[in-house]
Each structure stands twice: as structure tokens, then as C-alpha cells.
């Protein structure tokens, strides 16, 4: 007698879980009523923001959310789409490809979601792409920079940022042609982003005639001691150390390098263009970087964005805020011109050619890739980013 219960109860547990999950998603789908791959004629238009909302990259997810919400609130204040407001739902991928795939499926299964802005990292985006493409949901990534993210055959996938190839070329040009550095050491984080970032910088630096004397990586994650790699670099005596790092690692590396007496100049990539980086004050003085977004730029759209952002969130908008804002602007443009359906948004977005945004103008090529944003070459001076002369 006693033995039967475990199975009966297990059956019950498993079933109730599944039924619950079923009800959950069914309810989500019926929230706004479902039409042909879009929402009903009234009620809010739902777009999703997907990225790391918790876990290691939570600050980037938050940056996405802020940028997207600013764009949406401005769109709604102007009357929305034929009087209907746009609403944002969040998808938390914890920056983990497995989670990202689940999020992608969840958002795609929800008929009311008409477009997705995300994901943050290339690996999370790679995990989502097949699902969005199969489910015919327009997805635009503001930040994933791996060259293979956009493909001609992935019709539903857009990117409104840049690629590692373009950024590497710009940084190499900045380091070799403008700053006249000859011996460069490269130190990068061994992640999907760090690797393609460093590879492309190295390629172009060598093309422009510099010697890449050192090429070292360190493991991703929460390490705090970079002295091993730095000791190696110090012995090479480079005149520039290029860091393919996120800003928090970058600050630590620069600090430790200076403590070890390394005299070289430092250069990083666009992730350094954040408030958090500047908070390291003296440590980051003189560090060079590039960014698609420069808050002090002499440009009306940038000025407006900076002011609006500050007013809404009481802190300065950064690089990722601006990119998310721009990607959302592209989606909203798609809604405006193509109507609030998945197909309509996709087709209207693919036609975008010269939409003015904060980080330049969005022009999609035949791979729906946006490849013509201008870089600002920056340097930290007196605790602020200024355009390098």
C-alpha cells in the first residue's frame, strides 16, 4: 500500500506544474486578446526588452530598460500609435544562453508581443535568434556585436549598433595612426565579446603597421587579480596597453598596472564609456577609448537625449542607455509605418534608411545590419570624457 503513493503524488505534482505553466502562458497570451500575430485593435501594444535583468550583467539589463522606457514614454506622450499606448514587458536572460532561449520562446509564444529589443551579449542573442526567426518575431539587438549575428537568411533579426570589426578598425586607427603607438600589448577578457574585440583590434593594428608585442587573455567572471597577466605585459615594455574589457574589470586592471609601475598608455573600447568608469577618478585619468555615444557632443539629438534622460532618471545616460533608446526608436518607427503587427513592424523596419537617432542615423543594409555610425575618439581628462584632439 505504502509504495503506491509516491508515484501517484509525483504524477500529481508533475501534472499540476505543467497545468500551472500552461495556464500562466495562456493567460499571458490572452491578456490583450490575440489577433494574427499581433494585438487586438484596442489596448496597449506590447514590446519586450530582453537582457540580463538579474545576475552578473544586471546593470546592463537595467540600462536597456531605462533607454527603452524613455523612448516609449516619449512616443506615448506624442499620442502613441493611433491613440494606443506602447507598453514594455521585460525578459530576464541572466546573460545565459540557456535562459535566453527560454525567454525568447516565452516572448514568441505570447501573441501580444510584437517586437523584441535584445539581447545584450552575442551568446545570448545567438541562442535567441533561431527561435525569433522560426516564430517570426522581429528582434533588434542594440549591443550584440559578433559579425555573424545578422545573416541575410535571418529575416527577422536586426541590429542597430555596430560590429566588432568596425570598432576594432576605428580603435586601431586611433592608436596607431593618430596616437603613433608602435608597440602595443593587448589584454582581453576571454568571453565572446572580448575575444572578437581583441582579434579585430589586433588585425587592424598590424595592418596599420604597429607591432602587437603581447596578446594575453584572462578568464571571464569575478576575478580580481590581474597581476599575472600584467607581469607578462610589463616585461614586454609596450607603449600602449589595449584592454578588451568591460569597465569594471578595466578599472581594476589599470589600477593594478599603475601600482606595478607600468608606464604605458591605456586604451579600451566602448564599454568604458560609462559613469561607473569615471567614478574611479585618478585611476582612469588619461585612458583612451571610443564610443558611439558622447554626451557632450555638439549635436541637437544628443543634447536632447542627455537632458531628457537626466530629467527622467536623475542620473546621466550612458552608452548602453543610448543604444537601447535608439534600437527602441527603430521599433517604434516600425510600428508607426507598418502597424502594430509582427509582420508590419518587420517590413517597415527593413525599409528604414536614414532614421536620425542619438548615435547617428540608422540605415539597414541587406542583412538588416546598421553599419554606419560614427565613432567618437575620447580620452579621460580631469575626470570627464573629452574628444581626443
Amino acid at each position: 500500500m505504502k509504495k503506491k503513493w509516491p508515484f501517484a503524488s509525483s504524477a500529481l505534482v508533475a501534472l499540476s506544474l505543467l497545468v500551472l505553466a500552461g495556464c500562466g502562458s495562456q493567460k499571458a497570451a490572452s491578456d490583450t486578446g490575440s489577433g494574427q500575430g499581433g494585438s487586438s485593435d484596442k489596448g496597449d501594444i506590447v514590446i519586450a526588452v530582453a537582457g540580463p535583468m538579474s545576475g552578473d550583467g544586471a546593470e546592463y539589463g537595467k540600462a536597456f530598460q531605462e533607454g527603452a522606457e524613455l523612448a516609449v514614454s516619449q512616443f506615448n506622450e506624442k499620442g502613441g500609435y493611433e491613440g494606443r499606448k506602447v507598453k514594455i514587458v521585460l525578459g530576464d536572460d541572466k546573460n545565459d544562453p540557456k535562459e535566453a532561449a527560454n525567454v525568447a520562446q516565452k516572448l514568441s509564444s505570447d501573441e501580444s508581443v510584437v517586437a523584441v529589443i535584445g539581447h545584450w551579449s552575442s551568446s545570448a542573442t545567438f541562442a535567441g535568434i533561431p527561435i525569433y526567426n522560426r516564430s517570426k518575431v522581429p528582434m533588434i539587438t542594440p549591443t550584440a556585436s559578433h559579425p555573424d549575428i545578422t545573416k541575410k537568411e535571418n529575416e527577422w533579426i536586426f541590429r542597430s549598433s555596430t560590429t566588432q570589426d568596425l570598432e576594432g578598425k576605428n580603435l586601431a586607427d586611433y592608436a596607431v595612426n593618430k596616437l603613433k603607438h608602435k608597440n602595443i600589448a593587448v589584454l582581453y577578457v576571454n568571453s565572446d565579446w572580448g575575444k572578437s574585440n581583441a582579434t579585430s583590434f589586433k588585425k587592424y593594428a598590424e595592418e596599420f603597421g604597429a607591432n602587437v608585442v603581447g596578446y594575453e587573455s584572462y578568464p571571464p567572471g569575478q576575478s580580481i587579480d590581474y597581476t599575472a597577466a600584467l607581469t607578462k605585459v610589463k616585461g614586454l615594455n609596450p607603449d600602449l596597453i589595449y584592454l578588451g574589457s568591460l569597465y569594471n574589470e578595466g578599472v581594476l586592471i589599470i589600477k593594478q598596472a599603475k601600482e606595478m609601475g607600468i608606464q604605458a598608455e591605456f586604451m579600451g573600447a566602448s564599454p568604458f564609456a560609462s559613469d561607473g568608469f569615471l567614478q574611479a577618478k585618478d585611476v582612469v585619468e588619461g585612458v583612451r577609448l571610443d564610443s558611439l555615444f558622447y554626451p557632450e557632443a555638439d549635436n541637437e539629438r544628443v543634447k536632447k537625449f542627455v537632458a531628457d534622460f537626466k530629467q527622467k532618471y536623475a542620473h546621466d545616460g550612458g552608452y548602453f542607455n543610448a543604444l537601447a533608446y535608439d534600437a527602441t526608436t527603430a521599433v517604434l518607427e516600425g510600428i508607426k509605418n507598418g502597424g502594430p503587427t509582427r509582420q508590419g513592424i518587420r517590413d517597415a523596419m527593413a525599409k528604414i534608411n536614414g532614421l536620425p537617432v542619438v548615435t547617428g542615423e540608422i540605415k539597414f543594409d541587406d542583412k538588416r545590419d546598421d553599419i554606419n555610425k560614427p565613432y567618437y575618439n575620447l580620452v579621460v581628462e580631469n575626470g570627464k570624457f573629452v574628444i581626443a584632439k
Partner: protein
Amino acid sequence: MKKKLALALLLLLFLLLPFVITSSYVIRIGVISCIFSILALSLGMLVGQIKLVSAGHAAFFGIGAYTSALLTTRVELPFLGGLVSAILLTALIGFLFSIPILKLKGHYLSVGTLAFGIVVQVIMLNWESVTNGPNGVPGVPFPSLFGAELDSDVKMYYFVLVLLVLVLLGLSRLYRSPIGRAFNYIREDEVAASTIGIRVVRYKVLGFTLSAGLAGLAGSLFAHYMAFINYDTFSPMESFMVLAMVVVGGMSTLMGPVLGAFILSTLPELLRDLSDYRMLLYGVILVLILLLRPQGILGKKAS
């Protein structure tokens, strides 16, 4: 008899599920649960049957996933070729690894397997010419059987469900065979087992090899279903996750790991909308289950 009936009913319910629920999100959770059930079963064989607590099982899962993904994307092997190669290669690596590691006992063995898990993950990350390093392997093709591509969640669901049932049937036969009994003797008392003539090391190696091969099968299915893999997924964290599935479900039973896998794959999705509190609640629920049923949900009271 009643037990059999309950299981048959349960299977029927799972077979009918896609007709009741059309949301591909729910079906997806079903697929992931089945894949992880196979993985948890493979670890259950070690932990529950032989009492070898492995804390690096995600390594075998990952080796299977990478083998299958790389062979189908680079050498253009068909899916079945990738699947079989994944099982064989993972089993071989399990076999080779088991010979030195089984010299260790108890906690030392667990630490050794944990180290193995870390080493394998570092290799995935750094052996770039083979594994494509941190960028992982995108574009893994969908499974195809004899020319029919399993290109939808529902087709995939039936495929993994059938495989799960086959694995369960195989394991239930195995556990009742002389080999299974030998496993259990070793579990209860190694010294006594060897005095009655059971070759302890030989059986442990066999268990390790079978378990690794089964984990390789799960890995291959995972790679082809996700279409993208990278080193992230095969972390020590994942190893503990699988261990938790086995423990929560009830380690010494056949169905325990399956139940654990279903609960631990479904729970995070049910809690998804609670974003910030999600993992907190998840942890609380886990602790509660283990407090209320230390032997696992299906586990028998310790004798």
C-alpha cells in the same frame, strides 16, 4: 500493478499534452525537462545506485553537446551520426577518467569530479581551434530522422519523450539485472560486496562509463534543440543543478531523478515573472523540499 497503471496513465498524459496545450513555450519546457531527465537519470545511476557522488556531471553533458554540435556543423555528419558519436566519445572519456578517479573514496571522489568539471569547462573555453572558444557553436542543425527534420517543438517533444521512455525501460531492466544488484551491494557495503566476490572496481568503472554515455546522449539532444551552445552552460553550477535534481526527486529510485528534473526545470519558469525574487524563492522551495523529505520526494525511508 497499480504502480504500472499509474505510470502508464502518466505517460498517456504526457503524450496528449501537445493536444491540450498549444503554447510552444510550455512544450519547450517539456522538451528541456525530458532532456534534463535523461541527464539526471545518468547521474542517478552513479549517486543513487552505486553511491558515487559526482559533482562534475555537466562535463559529460558538455562533451556530448560539443561532440555532436561540432561533428554536425563542421564535418556535416547527419544528426544520428552526431548522436551516436556523442554517446560513444563521452562514454570513452568517462571510462578513461573513471580509472584514476575511482582510486578515491567519498568526499575525495566528489572533489576530484568537481575538478574534472572545471577542467573540462576551461578546455571548452580555451581550446579555440576545436571548440571556437568563448563564441560557442552557433547554427547546430535540428535533429533529422531518416530525412524528416524535427523542426518544431512538438516533434522534438515526442522525440525526446520516446527516448526518455526507452532510457527508463533500459535502466529499469539494468537495475533489476545482476549488474544492478551488484551496484546495490557496492552501495550498501563495499567491503562485504568484495568478500562475496563482486569485483567492485570493475562495476564502478562500468557504472561510470554507462552514466557518461547517457549524459552524452542528453548533451547531444540539448545541443541540437538549442541550436547554439557555449561553455557557459556546462559550468559547475549546472553540475550541482543536476545533483539537486537527483537528490530532490529521490536518488535511490528509478523515477526520482525524472521528477527532480521536471520540478527543477519547470520551477524557474513558473517563477519567471517574479524577476528579482525568482532565484530566492527557488532556493527556499528547494530547502523546504529537502527539509520535509530528506530522502527526496520519491525516496524511501532510510532502512
